[in-house]
């Protein structure tokens, strides 16, 4: 038959397409995101700010830090050595750093620049009283019983390099001790072991390989009585993945089991399970494949919502399976098509709206849901008629049971008292919703546990690392311009430190002065020689030859300049890469890291500091994240209202006055659930609103199908089964530990339940069952 032939061809093409998509995605390999940053809008920030934020985040993302702390230095050092030995097994995957390179050796590279690169304190000393304080200090060092450095009475009589070396070393958070990296800021002896990841921290196989070595090591170190603190994106990613895995295997398994039992009860057979699972699995797999191919990675939250998608996709299969019992097979699709098309359109419309938000997380979710729905829909349409060849017809007992129950259900049109109750309830809920306030916290997006976050913060503060989300961004055409701008800020930052507002800061210009400043420095040094060299030379009984050699060397050295290129080539310079965002000629940008907790008052002052300077921006991405959540919450509430309006127009076009029967159940259910949520919680957020959108989508499906099939018993069974499965799939998210999922599930659970309870109330009044429509 021609029709069958076309049907088979279409099914084969769809099969081929699914296979190609899955194969391409499988070849690319799965990368699961759990980072909060991945949920941030991509093109929301100015490109240069985004680049700086990414740069800061990357520095954090690729390193895994272990701090091993003990009662005594010997124990802690032994622990650090043991850790390094064990972690050596990860060679090829990580670069391990635990040997002290010797800070002195690093700083030694700066010796030729001792007269042009001056430490902050030396600069201050040289600006006062002709540098007499520096002269006295140099004398003291000369007569010290032990100096701790080699004296250079000819090359550096005023020991300028000693001060420079000390200043540079104090900028390094770690010092060499027993050949290990000792954390200076820690009161108890603590050593650092740093792993630089050569692969993506979000890759699950990378996480597994690292954890396989790291976890037993942590146990061993703890048995030795050592405390270990960790920091690194990989830990958060892997904890997030673990949590997702745990929740998928509890909540996810629970919902799948529930759905299976439901089908067994309804169909008294296991075969329909296959018919339901095939479209659902195909939909979910295609959605995952397309998301991976489009975004290159998939967020944990997207997968979790994807698990929820199962619920809606079950819908289409249920309708087919229920109808095929009572309608000739050839007619099933034709009979279902209007409902299926309208249902798909309304759901896809509701989800696709999310893709308009410039939130990559929401966009991924929207694409995932829309693609998954379309794929499941196509699978029902193209494959199910071919798969269900065995003829098992006849009304289902479950349909009869449900229908008997529905027969006793009141009609809202026949019961003014019930109508009044619902109207009052609706109005009251609307009032509560209208009064409800929003609460947009960044903590909502946080997927990591508080313990892990605290541990991470401790490591970062021991390392003297400033916040990676709040910093000053300085940009310009050249390093010279940027460094001069930074130098201009130093005084203001210094006074913020003096006021005990700011704990400290880390700026490139502290270690690499601008050429302008280097010129000033060399003038100061010449002035110092003019004023004090004679007395010094006399005290040392220098010969004439030694005196002129020393002066020669000074003039030579004051002409030398430390260029940014030379600095970046030094090993020391590489410890400052986090501060250099871009070093392209014509586009140079640096970051001034701010240390300690930044109060909102301090943030105000920093903003005021940056305000008048065109090349300086105070970046506070956490602060702006709250603002963003607020903006998108507002945007989505508008979209929700718009979606209701659009759907109403669509419904009125087809159902005219009867449209209220379809729209009212999800609307009332949403209002009541939302009001109840607001009464129990402090405020609502973005994710509650997304849940309301889902209630609308599923509620519409239900109403449309019931109307299209004129309330047939088997449609009622189908919508009951699909609501129950959606409830199991989405509603159970209310049990999740992940705030985003919880806030979604907690609305969906009562929302869908109420929709299902309200929908039969709104049915058209009739005295008997119209079985076949």
């Amino acid at each position, binding site marked *: 038959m021609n029709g069958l032939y076309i049907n088979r061809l279409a099914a084969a093409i769809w099969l081929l397409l699914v296979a190609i998509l899955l194969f391409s995605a499988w070849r690319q390999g799965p990368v699961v995101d759990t980072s909060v940053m991945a949920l941030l809008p991509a093109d929301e920030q100015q490109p240069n700010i985004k680049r700086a934020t990414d740069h800061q985040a990357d520095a954090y993302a690729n390193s895994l830090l272990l701090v091993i702390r003990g009662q005594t230095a010997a124990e802690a050092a032994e622990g650090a050595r043991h850790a390094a030995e064990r972690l050596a097994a990860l060679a090829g995957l990580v670069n391990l750093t635990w040997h002290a390179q010797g800070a002195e050796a690093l700083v030694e590279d700066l010796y030729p620049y001792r007269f042009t690169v001056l430490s902050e304190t030396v600069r201050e000393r040289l600006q006062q009283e002709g540098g007499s304080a520096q002269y006295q*200090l140099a004398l*003291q060092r000369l*007569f010290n*019983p*032990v100096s701790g450095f080699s004296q250079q009475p*000819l*090359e550096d009589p005023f020991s300028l390099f000693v001060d420079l070396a000390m200043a540079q070393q*104090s900028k390094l958070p770690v010092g060499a001790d027993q*050949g290990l990296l000792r954390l*200076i800021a820690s009161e108890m002896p603590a050593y650092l072991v740093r792993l630089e990841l050569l692969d993506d921290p979000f890759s699950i196989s990378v996480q597994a390989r690292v954890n396989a070595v790291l976890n037993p090591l942590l146990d061993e170190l703890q048995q030795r009585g050592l405390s270990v603190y960790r920091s690194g994106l990989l830990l958060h990613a892997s904890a997030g993945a673990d949590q997702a895995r745990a929740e998928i295997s509890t909540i996810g398994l629970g919902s799948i089991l529930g759905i299976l039992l439901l089908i067994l009860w309804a169909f008294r057979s296991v075969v329909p399970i296959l018919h339901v699972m095939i479209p659902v699995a195909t939909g979910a797999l295609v959605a995952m494949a397309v998301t991976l191919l489009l975004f290159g990675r998939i967020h944990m939250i997207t997968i979790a919502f994807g698990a929820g998608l199962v619920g809606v996709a079950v819908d289409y299969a249920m309708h087919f399976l229920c109808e095929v019992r009572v309608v000739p097979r050839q007619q099933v699709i034709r009979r279902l098509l209007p409902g299926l098309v309208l249902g798909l359109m309304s759901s896809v419309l509701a989800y696709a709206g999310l893709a308009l938000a410039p939130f990559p997380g929401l966009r991924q979710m929207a694409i995932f849901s829309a693609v998954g729905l379309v794929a499941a829909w196509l699978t029902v349409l193209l494959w199910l008629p071919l798969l269900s060849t065995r003829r098992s017809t006849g009304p289902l007992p479950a349909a009869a049971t449900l229908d008997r129950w529905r027969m006793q259900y009141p009609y809202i049109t026949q019961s003014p008292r019930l109508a009044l109750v619902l109207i009052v309830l609706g109005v009251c809920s609307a009032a509560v919703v209208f009064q409800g306030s929003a609460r947009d916290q960044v903590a909502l997006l946080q997927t990591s546990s508080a313990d892990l976050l605290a541990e991470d913060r401790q490591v970062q503060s021991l390392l003297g690392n400033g916040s990676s989300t709040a910093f000053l961004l300085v940009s310009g055409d050249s390093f010279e311009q940027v460094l001069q701008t930074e130098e201009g800020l130093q005084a203001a930052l210094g006074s913020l430190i003096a006021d005990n507002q700011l704990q400290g800061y880390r700026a490139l210009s502290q270690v690499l002065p601008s050429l302008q400043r280097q010129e000033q420095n060399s003038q100061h040094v010449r002035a110092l020689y003019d004023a004090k060299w004679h007395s010094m030379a006399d005290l040392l009984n220098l010969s004439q030859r030694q005196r002129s050699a020393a002066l020669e060397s000074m003039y030579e050295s004051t002409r030398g300049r430390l260029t940014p290129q030379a600095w970046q080539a030094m090993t020391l310079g590489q410890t400052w890469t986090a501060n250099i965002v871009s070093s392209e000629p014509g586009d140079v940008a640096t970051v001034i890291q701010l240390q300690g907790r930044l109060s909102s008052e301090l943030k105000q002052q920093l903003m005021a500091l940056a305000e008048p300077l065109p090349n300086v921006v105070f970046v506070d991405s956490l602060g702006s994240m709250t603002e963003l959540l607020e903006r998108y919450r507002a945007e989505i509430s508008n979209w929700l209202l718009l979606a209701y309006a659009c759907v109403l127009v669509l419904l009125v076009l087809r159902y005219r006055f009867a449209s209220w029967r379809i729209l009212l159940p999800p609307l009332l259910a949403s209002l009541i659930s939302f009001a109840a949520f607001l009464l129990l919680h402090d405020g609502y957020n973005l994710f509650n609103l997304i849940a309301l959108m889902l209630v609308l989508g599923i509620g519409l499906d239900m109403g449309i199908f019931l109307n299209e099939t004129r309330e047939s018993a088997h449609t009622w069974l189908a919508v009951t089964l699909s609501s129950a499965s959606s409830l199991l799939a989405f509603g159970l998210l209310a049990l999740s530990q992940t705030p985003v999922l919880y806030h979604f599930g907690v609305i969906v659970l009562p929302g869908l339940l109420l929709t299902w309870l309200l929908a039969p109330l709104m049915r058209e009044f009739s005295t008997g069952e119209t079985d076949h429509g």
Partner: protein
Amino acid sequence: MIRLLCLILSLHAPSVLADTTSPSSAVYAEISALMDSHSSLQGRFDQVKYLAALEAEISSSGRFEYEHDKAIRWHTREPIENLLTLTSRGILSEQDGKVLSRLDAQSNPIVSLFSDIFFGVMTADWQRLEHHFEMESWVAGANWHAVLTPRAHEVESIVSRVELQGDRYLREIILHEAGGDWTRIRFSELPQ
């Protein structure tokens, strides 16, 4: 350099005859038994410092005083005036009551190590020294002599070798630095 070697040899000469080396802790006990213990001490020091870069010596002298485990005040009077105060918290350098520099031991492990070694050497605190140095010693009657070699690289960058000599009191210290500089300090005017 030749002079330095002679100096070391001459210092070693009597002790070589006297005794063989013994396990360190036992020796510490032996030397400690020879020495008077003081909770505080003061006296005069004469210092000669050899600067390798100049191939010349510079001399200085002054007064010192210490309170056990608390503070050392190292007061150079000739040819410059300078007061160095070492405590567990750090190193303070003053001239005529004016602070020249203040180094914090808490924030700088080198300062803390430096201060620890200085304390150990100046007060002949063997327990403190054992932590940082391998020790060889000789005892001849009431006189003793010890040579300390650093255990760790960080210590070696401050002092490469320390020689101590004394009887009831620590009488002489020679500190060798990695760059070839050395310092000889002799103590006198100690209480009798």
